[in-house]
């Protein structure tokens, strides 16, 4: 079952690819003291062996294209093939980022239109496509908020409020951008506790970071009041777009009162996750924050598009060029194909799917909040852990044997033995029903034969891992073998 490492397949002198022969004279090499001293240990392999190697590795991986992937908060929807077809065009791949403006009008128009469409979808004024991932968008957003406060000579604002249930990137980003973090409590409804919020608001608060719907899959119905309170103390509202798939065309963060938002196009707008990236994290802002957006801006005048660098209050560049462009092209293609009607329909069906699966599973698990969910929901396996010694992890691992990707586990942190399911709109009712009956079978199995679950998976390429050994004696390269 083991696929040998490339380096273990290497044979001295074997070649997988030949460049054209050089047709210029050779020149004296770099001075000796600037030359590399020893050759790198890299594999020498034939083309067929490289093809086999990666094809074998691909068969030992799992994606949406193989099976249902209800990973909560990750929106693992179908990635249309159309998008990859389009991003293979020379008119996209062969364009250099520093070409003369007159030769990149197509790319600029696309970025301009995408910025405009995303502003419309979210109810914001304008934005930047430069951030390269969701967390990078958060970083950009908080930098903008910081620059805004400083432009008003308001230097006291050092705190960012974050609910306990927030994604780990929120506190990490706040910390990286130089803020301290204050946690906001969640009330019995699973929503932001208004009393806790009120008690924390003062003139040292720079912003609050929220998702809506939140990580429990619940809509923060007090959001207008939250916005009123937060703005009242002079702070800004940051919207983490992780859960936007629930509300496209139905409710807009801008209308809720948010000042800055980022989107995860690899979640909501169907661009592929690629095993962890590349994603893209466009940031959209309200008008008062526009001057602080990264440079360059893109402007449009009489059919001609230009980069605009002259923005004296800008936070500057957040990445090398203009964003993960090919990823952004996929997001734009998705918007074109879906349109206003399609995006709304996507959110409606995502919420329909989640409520249906929630209905099918409710009887079998404890649910922290009885109310209807949005695009995702959380159940708890606490009861199975206490009674039969079967944990959330065991349910997840058992799903691997049944050709499903597990839900998100142990998140949010305020629900014990949490399992968080997100069944995107691209999944059919049959898939949901089959999955639900599998989950219910597993709960039966927990009662009768817990060991089978605790030892799962049984049919995968490898069994459960020795994670402690991996972290204690890390082997991170083939040289260490």
């Amino acid at each position, binding site marked *: 079952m083991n696929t040998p490492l490339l380096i273990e397949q290497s044979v001295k002198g074997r070649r997988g690819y030949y460049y054209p022969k050089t047709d*210029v004279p050779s020149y004296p090499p770099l001075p000796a003291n600037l030359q590399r001293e020893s050759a790198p240990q890299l594999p020498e392999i034939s083309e067929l062996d490289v093809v086999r190697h990666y094809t074998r590795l691909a068969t030992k991986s799992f994606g949406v294209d193989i099976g249902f992937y209800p990973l909560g908060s990750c929106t693992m929807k179908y990635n249309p093939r159309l998008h990859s077809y389009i991003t293979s065009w020379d008119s996209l791949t062969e364009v250099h980022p520093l070409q003369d403006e007159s030769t990149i009008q197509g790319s600029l128009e696309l970025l301009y239109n995408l910025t405009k469409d995303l502003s419309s979808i979210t109810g914001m004024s304008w934005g930047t496509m430069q951030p390269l991932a969701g967390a990078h968008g958060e970083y950009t957003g908080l930098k903008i908020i910081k620059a805004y406060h400083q432009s008003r000579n308001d230097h006291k604002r050092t705190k960012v409020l974050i609910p306990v249930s927030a994604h780990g990137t929120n506190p990490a980003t706040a910390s990286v951008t130089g803020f301290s973090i204050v946690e906001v409590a969640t009330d019995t409804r699973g929503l932001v506790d208004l009393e806790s919020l009120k008690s924390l608001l003062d003139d040292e608060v720079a912003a609050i970071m929220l998702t809506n719907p939140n990580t429990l899959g619940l809509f923060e119905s007090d959001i207008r009041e939250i916005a009123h309170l937060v703005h009242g103390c002079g702070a800004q509202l940051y919207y983490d777009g992780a859960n936007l798939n629930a509300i496209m065309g139905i409710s807009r963060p801008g209308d809720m009162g948010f000042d800055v938002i980022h989107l995860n196009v690899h979640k909501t707008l169907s661009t592929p996750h690629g095993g*962890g*990236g590349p994603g893209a994290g466009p940031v959209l802002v309200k008008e008062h924050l526009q001057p602080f957006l990264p440079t360059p801006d893109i402007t449009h005048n009489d059919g001609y598009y230009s980069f605009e660098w002259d923005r004296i209050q800008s936070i500057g560049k957040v990445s090398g060029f203009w964003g993960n462009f090919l990823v952004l092209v996929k997001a734009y293609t998705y918007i*074109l194909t879906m*349109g206003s009607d399609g995006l709304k329909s996507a959110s409606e069906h995502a919420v329909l799917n989640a409520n249906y699966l929630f209905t099918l599973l409710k009887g079998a698990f404890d649910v922290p909040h009885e109310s209807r969910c949005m695009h995702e929901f959380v159940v708890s396996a606490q009861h199975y852990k206490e009674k039969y010694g079967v944990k959330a992890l065991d349910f997840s691992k058992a799903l691997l044997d049944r050709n499903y990707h597990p839900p998100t586990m142990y998140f949010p942190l305020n629900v014990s033995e949490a399992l968080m399911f997100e069944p995107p709109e691209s999944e059919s009712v049959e898939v949901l029903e089959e999955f639900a009956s599998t989950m219910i079978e597993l709960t039966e199995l927990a009662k009768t034969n817990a060991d089978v679950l605790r030892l799962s998976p049984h049919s995968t390429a490898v069994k459960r891992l020795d994670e402690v050994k991996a972290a204690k004696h890390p082997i991170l390269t083939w040289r260490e073998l």
Partner: protein
Amino acid sequence: MVPYIPHTESDRNRMLQAIGVDSIDQLFDTIPPKLRYKGLLPINEGLSEHEVIRLLQEMLKKNILGTSYLGMGSYDRIIPPTVSQLASHPTFVSAYTPYQPEISQGLLQAMFEYQSMISELTGLEISNASLYDGHTACSEAGAIMISSKRKSTTLLVSETLHPFSLSVLNTWALGTEVTLVIIPETERHTSVNTMIDSLSEEVAGVIVQSPNRYGVVENYTSLSEAVHQNKSLLTISSDPLSLLLQKTPSQWGADIAVGDTQPLGLPSAFGGPSCGYIAVSKRLMRSIPGRVVGLSTDIEGNRAYTLTLQAREQHIRRERATSNICSNQALAAITTAIHIALVGPEGLTDAATQSYDKAHYLHEQLSHITSLRVDTKSPFWCEFPLFFESKAQLDHAVSFLQHKGIYAGVRLGSLTTKKEDEATLIVAVTEKRSKEELDIYVRYMREALA
């Protein structure tokens, strides 16, 4: 007509009935009516895939391709077609971060091999599974250096860094405790002596780049020792293909190596996605940001790969994480690994050497044109500055060549605010250019300046 949603009318009815509501609308009851968006969003109505293709073809006709001598962080290199074919396997493309190692051994092994390759190229022991790009990698290196030395929040940065790396660093430092001190260059080289003189207790580390923004291969003989004597750390940013020829960051004594793997199998694509790399010495292993894949065993003792050292990361450590990075550039990193595997060490050296020779050939030919000036003293690899008499002369030549379908180089003045950069063109030559193309470049340049 909405694509990618499989539900029929009868599916919807069955589901709504089971949930116990009358309509989809009712599922959104928890959203206050005031916040419900009325009507349809002000964007286009949905189009068929065929119409979308037509529309985008029309829009992208306005992108005009040319024979490229543009570089400064993105290069027109030969990429074997096999690379993108292999990288587009559906399970690589449509997978999330491999949190479930039992069903992700393929992806994890591919990432482990990528890490191994970066370690081999840079000579430093530990690589992560990728960062966003080479520019943001500089700030991540800065963060490691600052966290590694107590009460030291100053970084010395050479002015010869890519102008965009400097901008990204500036944004990163803005409003935080970090102080960036930019050390002015000397004749297109890092001012090593000034840098050494600027070392102090407060200096956590130093960032330099080779080949630098002018393409110059720099010499760090005395720098590394002085930096370490000061108990600071050294980061070197490099084009990874150049490392086949030039001294590696590890051989210079660097603690951290960063850069961008675009030259290794990734198309320019208007600047992204590319892929940032970072490699560190063993003692900094637990400070490295982002995903790291380790080799371990499963409970039956079989070789098994997994994401490891996760105690550093944001989803565990939250506000005390070493970085906020979550998504990285995984698929771009795997594409780079496939490129390296296919081309092999001989092939990489061939590409690096051909770039060197072809750049030197063009450099030599252009040096014969009287109104142009080139730097004949500084060692360089595949990129060099071309000095014109004036900005007007440069603009004329660039636009003359552009009309002939040749992108002559990057106007340095468009990336910086320095007056003397206005008449400087940075010319990049890769293995992809033929002698015939280089000769045509020289001919048109002569014509333009005649």
